[in-house]
């Protein structure tokens, strides 16, 4: 089924980052459709495009009903995550309407679903460090191996998450600096260098990682321990690590 000789890898600049497709054994056509979807998401949800639906909605030029239905869906989902995270996940953390903390993971997850719908049984989509993999991995044993970046030592990994059909999202200080704001204080959170969430859905993993990072230490760990269906791995500013009990491994 999986032909080891075929392995499509493609990186596409979209949504302000790079989205990497890894499709063992297939199918450029399906990837093209997924790329079109990601560009549509960018046009619709980008806070950097004044003509995006999200910006026009925020300025009052569009009603929610006039926006594509995905906007209502995303905002409703964001509110739900805000409720689950005691408000640490917020679409208005920085004042303006900005659902990016949910949108990216959601868009990548659905891109992976589009590949599945097009017949791909195995693939991995990585949107700027947030990963959704489906089916068996291309290695022996049929597992995907996703490395977790070391936020304190760029270019190195701290551990590997291995399995099939799972999502991994990481929020942290690396690369973009302190871009997540604690909505309660208006300042970057402290104590955590990065937090990784794994579970079935990248949309929720991404939003949960954003919320957990905004909480900082030690609250992030306590909160993540109560998540159902999702596990967390944290790296503190001093380099020590923790994981929630749901995480199996060695």
């Amino acid at each position, binding site marked *: 089924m999986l032909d080891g000789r075929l392995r499509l890898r493609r990186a596409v600049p979209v949504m302000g980052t790079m989205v990497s497709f890894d499709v063992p054994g297939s199918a450029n056509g399906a990837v093209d459709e997924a790329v079109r979807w990601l560009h549509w998401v960018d046009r619709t949800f980008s806070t950097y495009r004044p003509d995006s639906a999200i910006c026009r909605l925020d300025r009052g030029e569009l009603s929610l*009903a006039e926006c594509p239905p995905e906007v209502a*869906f995303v905002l*409703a989902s964001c509110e739900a995550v805000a409720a689950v995270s005691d408000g640490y996940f917020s679409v208005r953390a920085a004042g303006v309407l900005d659902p990016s903390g949910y949108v990216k993971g959601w868009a990548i997850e659905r891109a992976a*679903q589009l590949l599945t719908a097009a017949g791909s049984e195995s693939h991995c989509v*990585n949107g700027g*460090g947030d990963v959704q993999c489906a089916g068996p991995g291309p290695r022996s044993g049929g597992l995907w191996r996703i490395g*977790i970046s070391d936020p304190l030592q760029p270019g190195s*990994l701290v551990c590997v998450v291995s399995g099939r059909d799972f999502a991994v999202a990481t929020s942290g200080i690396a690369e973009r600096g302190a871009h997540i704001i604690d909505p309660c204080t208006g300042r970057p959170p402290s104590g955590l260098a990065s937090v990784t969430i794994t579970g*079935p859905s990248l949309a929720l993993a991404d939003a949960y990682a954003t919320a957990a990072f905004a909480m900082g230490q030690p609250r992030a760990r306590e909160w993540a321990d109560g998540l*159902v269906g999702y596990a967390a791995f944290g790296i503190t500013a001093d380099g020590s690590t923790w994981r929630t009990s749901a995480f199996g491994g060695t």
Partner: protein
Amino acid sequence: MRRVIFAIVGTIAGLAALLSFKSHEPATVAATSGATGATGATGAATATGKPPAGERDIDGNVANTVYGPVQVQVVVKDSKIVDVKILEQPSSTANDLQIGQFAFPQLIKETLAAQSAHVDSVSGATYTSGGYVQSLQSALDNGA
């Protein structure tokens, strides 16, 4: 138009407020009996078809947009929201991953020299398209 947003937000915020009162039956939201098809595929542990004791699914009100209805379902355990599902969204694939059947990936701590770690992909804080150039992911995409 803000009223429309607040209507949705209000529905969910109201839902959350109601949920904080244990054993209070929310009047403004429907219990899930009508949505059996979707319910079977949702919830933290509903793979067997019935939520465990102390856990229940609550459907949010349907928000009608010109494109079709949008509806969110919330899974509640011990008066706390533990999961959120999308029951209905226009023109989309069903988001029906079953957490009850989800097998957690293994977390492996090993001696990791990055280049010899044999990984397929890398998760980390979001990089810009500029930062990507120096990233390990970039090397992987190039077939490293």
